[in-house]
């Protein structure tokens, strides 16, 4: 990993850790195993994956399925209906797997861009959120990342979600509690480029 990339991923993970997210830098060969290990730790019974070539290349879906986890892929997975995706029916311990378009080192933020293969609700309907971020997508500042996201020709993405923490609320006595509505746990795998 180039030294500047290493510094960026270190910055991202340190900032996220301050908000009680977790993460690690892994090489491409170890990414699927790291994803499966995290799923096992969370006790995940079903995973909802973005349809993204990055996940296919790393073999994440295959590995999870091999471990006995039910694997749904967006947008087909959407066919299950909201009650099931929200965990009101079927397994409650679910995991959304996303591939952020960018990661921001300063202050620690993931930039998730919606699209036909990447539903905007994948991470928040699930109990846990696993983000798989290729290291080449790291940027230093939020301004840089937002300008890049919106500077392209043609239509802006219909939805972009900035995610910087697990779902949390301080509405009861101002003490931060996780899992209010979105993912109760957030784990980021920064994948070194091959």
């Amino acid at each position, binding site marked *: 990993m180039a030294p500047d990339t290493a510094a960026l991923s270190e910055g991202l993970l340190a900032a996220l850790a301050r908000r009680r997210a977790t993460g690690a830098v892994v090489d491409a060969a170890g990414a699927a195993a790291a994803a499966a290990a995290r799923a096992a730790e969370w006790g995940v019974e079903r995973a909802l994956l973005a349809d993204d070539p990055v996940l296919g290349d790393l073999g994440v879906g295959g590995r999870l399925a091999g471990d006995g986890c039910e694997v749904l892929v967006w947008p087909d997975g959407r066919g299950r209906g909201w009650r099931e995706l929200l965990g009101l029916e079927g397994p409650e311990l679910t995991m959304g797997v996303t591939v952020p378009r960018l990661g921001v080192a300063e202050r620690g933020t993931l930039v998730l861009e919606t699209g036909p293969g990447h539903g905007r609700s994948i991470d928040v309907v699930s109990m846990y959120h696993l983000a798989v971020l290729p290291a080449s997508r790291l940027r230093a500042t939020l301004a840089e990342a937002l300008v890049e996201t919106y500077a392209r020709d043609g239509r802006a993405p219909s939805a972009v*979600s900035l995610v910087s923490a697990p779902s949390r609320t301080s509405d009861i006595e101002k003490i931060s509690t996780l899992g209010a509505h979105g993912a109760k746990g957030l784990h980021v795998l920064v994948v070194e480029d091959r």
Partner: protein
Amino acid sequence: MSGRRPVVYSDTTAPLRERTREALADDALAANLRAAGASWGAARTRISAENPFAEMRARAREIRRGDIGDLPELLARLEERVTAAGGVVTRAADADAACRYITDLAAARGATLVAKSKSMATEEIKLNEAIEESGLRVVETDLGEWILQLAGQHPSHIVAPAVHLNKEQVRQVLMAESGWELPTDREALVAHARTRLREVFASADIGISGVNFGVAETGTICVVENEGNARLVTALPRIHVAVMGMERVVRDWDEAAHILQILPMAAIGDDAAGYVNLITGPRAPGEADGPEELHLVILDGGRSALLGTDLEEALDCIRCGACLYSCPMWRSVGGQAYGSPYSGPIGSVLTPLLEGMEGERSSELPFMSSLCGSCHDACPVGIPLHDLLVRVRARVTTTAHRRDRARFRLWSRAWSNPAAYRLSVAMARIGLRLAGRRGWARRLPGPGAEWTSQRDLPTRWPPTPPR
């Protein structure tokens, strides 16, 4: 404007003096407010030590001053770009127009259930009441807002609406809603609310959100949150209606990035919000979630009248709530006593401006401040709130104020005549000696009664030390 819904709550019929007295006598409230203020203060100190807050604030102020200076142009651009992205924009002159647009839309689409995420603008226009009057069910999904909705109360803080309640009070409210016996730990209460509100997300026809700001450059709506409910509200239902105050626009993504960073620092003492939802139009072709229709309601509600006046800076506000926590008045009585959706220093400025100067609350709120200036220090966009409070005070006139003014006019006339001045001082000295004991007057008759109801008055100069 006739038929305009008042900003203030209809249920706060008791006068301000009574409401504050009640709040001051409430020990549980005092403890809850003390804890909230302390926790905000600690987080804020930590985050300011790690970040160059003063510089960021100067830049934020520059951004907001510039945006408000170009407001008509930026709004026009925002409207054009939202429309180009497939959204429907409507401008509402007042609360009634905004509510009517939304209830008409709901009726036209045959909606029955509305899921809401936190929005001060919808509090301001009393949207929930309008929706319920039209026969629909509306559910607040921000945990704090939901608790208040169930308890039949109004938010006491812009960012932390239920901050005046403690865990046991919350538990009682949630048990009353579900009829289930609930454990006492916070995690379990949050998990319970999560499940209950998922039922709402699964079946709501319309999602209503606020807007932290719109980015004119691309026609993008920003909704900032920490729980994830705003994403669910804006992603699952068929229709998304976003309600924004007309002043909440920034120019471009460079400005947006800066405001997105300073807002959570000021609001929750963290250097990033958990979630920021950036929405440009309804779902695009081929997408399997996101609303099919996006409506943006831009609310004037008295704001445009402030443009170009010496009160314009009130429009710079990004609703972070920092001035509330910093205010010794708010920390003593909480937000409920203000009787307006906007409490604390910014509430005391905004309520009379948006509602008009006439009402009881409007004429009193600007005086509920010691003008200590802590609000200005706390404000991430550097609004001189204490100056604005003084300017709003100057605009407020009531019978009591007119009487005061007449009295002061008489006084100033007397004192500009040397003989009359000397006579009045001599009489006052004799009067005070008679009224006082051991150098202090504890209770004065007539016009002095108000003063001595709160404090003693020395009758000699220099005063003798009180015993």
